[in-house]
């Protein structure tokens, strides 16, 4: 059981990849990319977790509480921002592709063959 969080992280990555490959819709595909990306949030936070640890936010200076790792949380914050920006760009491109071609199906968008 103590490896379940890591397994869920891997699961999200693999599920996201599978979704991207099988997706028939660019908007859905963009959301699958963010699912794959959210695997990294779970992985990072699971790594930094400490049993019976509290959030790394302290109310007083001398303290004896055991806190989880603040670094992975900072990394995840950055990761979330990157994820939302990329998703916004992808969705904008999907909307534009639809405007141009009238379809969101990647199988019908085949301008760049060969």
């Amino acid at each position, binding site marked *: *059981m103590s490896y379940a969080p890591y397994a869920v992280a891997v699961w999200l990555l693999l599920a*996201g990849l599978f979704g991207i490959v099988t*997706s*028939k819709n660019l*908007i859905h595909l963009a959301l699958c990319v963010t699912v794959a990306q959210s695997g990294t949030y779970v992985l990072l936070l699971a790594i930094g977790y400490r049993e019976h640890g509290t*959030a790394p936010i302290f109310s007083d200076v001398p303290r004896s509480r055991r806190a989880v790792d603040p670094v992975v949380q900072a990394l995840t914050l950055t990761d979330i921002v990157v994820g939302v920006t990329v998703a916004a760009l992808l969705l*904008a491109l*999907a909307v534009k592709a*639809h405007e141009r071609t009238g379809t969101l199906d990647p199988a019908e968008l085949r301008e760049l063959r060969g």
Partner: protein
Amino acid sequence: MIGVQIAALALVAAFGLAVVLVQDLVRVAMLYGIYGLTLVVLLVVFQAPDVALSELVVSMVAFPVIVVTALATIRRRERRGQ
């Protein structure tokens, strides 16, 4: 590991898969919102309130606005096309 963490992990894994498998856009949009919330719960039980707040505002504000407007734009366009 405590029960609430296991439950949150199971929810995240299940809704992540659901988002990936469902192809209908409106349903995906709703599932994605729920998926975001399950992630928030997971982040809270992993003692990461800062990250949970980030994920909360992203999945409750940013994504809904962007996804819904994108869907609305496309729907309007399709309606005209018919």
